[in-house]
């Protein structure tokens, strides 16, 4: 099998934008192409992520418009991906596999979303469309609600009082805002305190406002290329050494939602392919859509035993300078979460970290990075392991 590498990466500022989805994607896509020392005509396929364009702009079939908006060749097919919040990571993994399999040499992959543009009531409704429509959505379950149920079950299962758990969860938000304050493209660039998190409006018991990521607008894109070609185009291509993706059914089939089983399967695939273990990872961008989601992730990615990852942020182990730096970009929590773009922004951060270009939030000596993106109510998880140097 051929080797794949990431060339140029780019993201727009995340937050609230007046730009259209096509304008946002054009900004990120063209930057990623330029950073790769390529031209639009060199791209052989576009793997385009967008979840909710129909509700954001009344727009379906956005991929060919995005393709045309950045001047790709007509012979380069444009395909839309939708895997809820894991959309762009899945698109990038498909690009990697197509390159590895010899189908293409150069693919542009990423996504765009205008989640903030919908406003909270419609955004909450449309996000809930990723729950099972016949047997879950009619209960009024929301995405904060799904993770709130995970938090309560975590507290019960491991015998950690809810008050204690909530203080540690608040530390996750504080840590990610600390990182986000160093990221000029983050939706939130200011630090917060535990007290502020614990005094926020209740969204879904026990999760309060600052336990939740925001609805954001934004786009991100990356160029995936065959490794030999990549070396000729760029001084520091970042190599893909392992990938994994797994799927699970609705929550009522998954049952114990403190264990994200799709993640356990996906990340094992990625570690096995890379010949690496959790201890080898220097920096990780993982799916902290809610503070409890980061706790579940650090456990199922293998950084902590189950039931023991809840106080990692409190102990400073996941903060810049800690033993495994988690979400130096600010994560979904502070950097923002335009769902169809999120995975490409995570890859962008890891690639910049491995190139030593992350500025104030640089993880010293980072050589190996892990991307973790979760879609829907734990139904899709996609992982990528990237490495600097051969």
């Amino acid at each position, binding site marked *: 099998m051929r080797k794949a590498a990431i060339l140029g990466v780019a993201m727009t500022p995340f937050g609230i934008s007046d730009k259209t989805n096509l304008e946002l994607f054009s900004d990120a896509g063209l930057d990623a192409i330029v950073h790769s020392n390529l031209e639009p005509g060199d791209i052989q396929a576009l793997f385009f992520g967008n979840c909710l364009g129909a509700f954001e702009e009344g727009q379906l079939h956005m991929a060919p418009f995005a393709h045309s908006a950045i001047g790709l060749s007509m012979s380069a097919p444009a395909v839309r991906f939708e895997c809820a919040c894991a959309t762009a990571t899945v698109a990038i993994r498909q690009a990697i596999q197509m390159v590895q399999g010899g189908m293409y040499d150069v693919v542009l992959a990423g996504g765009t979303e205008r989640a903030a543009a919908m406003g*909270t*009531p*419609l955004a*909450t*409704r449309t996000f*809930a*469309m990723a729950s099972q*429509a*016949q*047997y*879950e*959505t*009619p*209960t*009024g*379950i*929301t995405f*904060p*609600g799904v993770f*709130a*149920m*995970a938090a*309560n*079950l975590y*507290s*019960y299962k491991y015998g950690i009082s*809810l008050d204690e758990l909530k203080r540690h969860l608040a530390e996750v938000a504080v840590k990610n805002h600390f990182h986000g304050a160093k990221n000029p493209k983050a939706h939130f660039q200011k630090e917060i305190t535990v007290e502020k998190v614990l005094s926020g*409006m*209740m*969204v*879904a*018991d*026990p999760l309060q406002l600052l336990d939740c990521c925001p609805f954001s607008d934004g786009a991100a894109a990356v160029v995936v290329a065959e490794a030999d070609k990549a070396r000729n185009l760029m001084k520091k291509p970042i190599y893909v050494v392992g990938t994994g993706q797994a799927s699970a*059914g609705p*929550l*009522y*089939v998954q*049952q114990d*939602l403190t264990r994200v089983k799709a993640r356990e399967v996906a990340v094992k695939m990625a570690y096995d392919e890379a010949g690496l273990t959790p201890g080898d990872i220097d920096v990780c961008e993982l799916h902290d859509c809610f503070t409890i989601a980061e706790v579940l992730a650090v456990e199922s990615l293998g950084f902590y035993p189950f039931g023991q990852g809840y106080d990692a942020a409190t102990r400073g182990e996941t903060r810049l300078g800690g033993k495994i730096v988690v979400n130096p970009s600010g994560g979904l929590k502070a950097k923002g979460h335009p769902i169809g773009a999120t995975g490409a922004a995570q890859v962008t951060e890891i690639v910049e970290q491995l190139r030593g270009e992350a500025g104030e939030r640089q993880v010293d000596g980072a050589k190996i990075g892990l991307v973790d993106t979760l879609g829907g109510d734990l139904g899709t998880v996609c992982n990528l392991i990237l490495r600097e140097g051969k």
Partner: protein
Amino acid sequence: MSTELTFRQYQDGLADHIFLGLRCDTCGSCTVPPQKVCRNCGGSDLQVEELEKSGFIRTFTVIRVAAEGMNPPFVVAMVETSSGAWVMGNLIDIDPDDANMALIGRKVAIGSHLVKGDVYACGDIHSLRFTLLD
């Protein structure tokens, strides 16, 4: 022999206060809500069975910021049914402000109520609702 239990048949059962599920001939697991294969082993030899309408709360939340068209606060819970399958529904006989961790493990009766579909939904749906026992 495969026996089908469609969404519509399951819904008609709930409307008549009957809780239908599927018992797997291969592994013995119960699958509810219905699908073509066993949720546990993927086997397709399933028999329709009337299920006991009780279970235990495994987790819950109080939705306070809701999707458009909903009236929060309300309680959503996941219940492990007596047959072993987990289902999602609404716990209705409690003031949401009184919902706390002591709910986890409580025994509930399982019933249903008709939820009016919004503009995006495909019609009205009989959704599960739970009431506390003992």
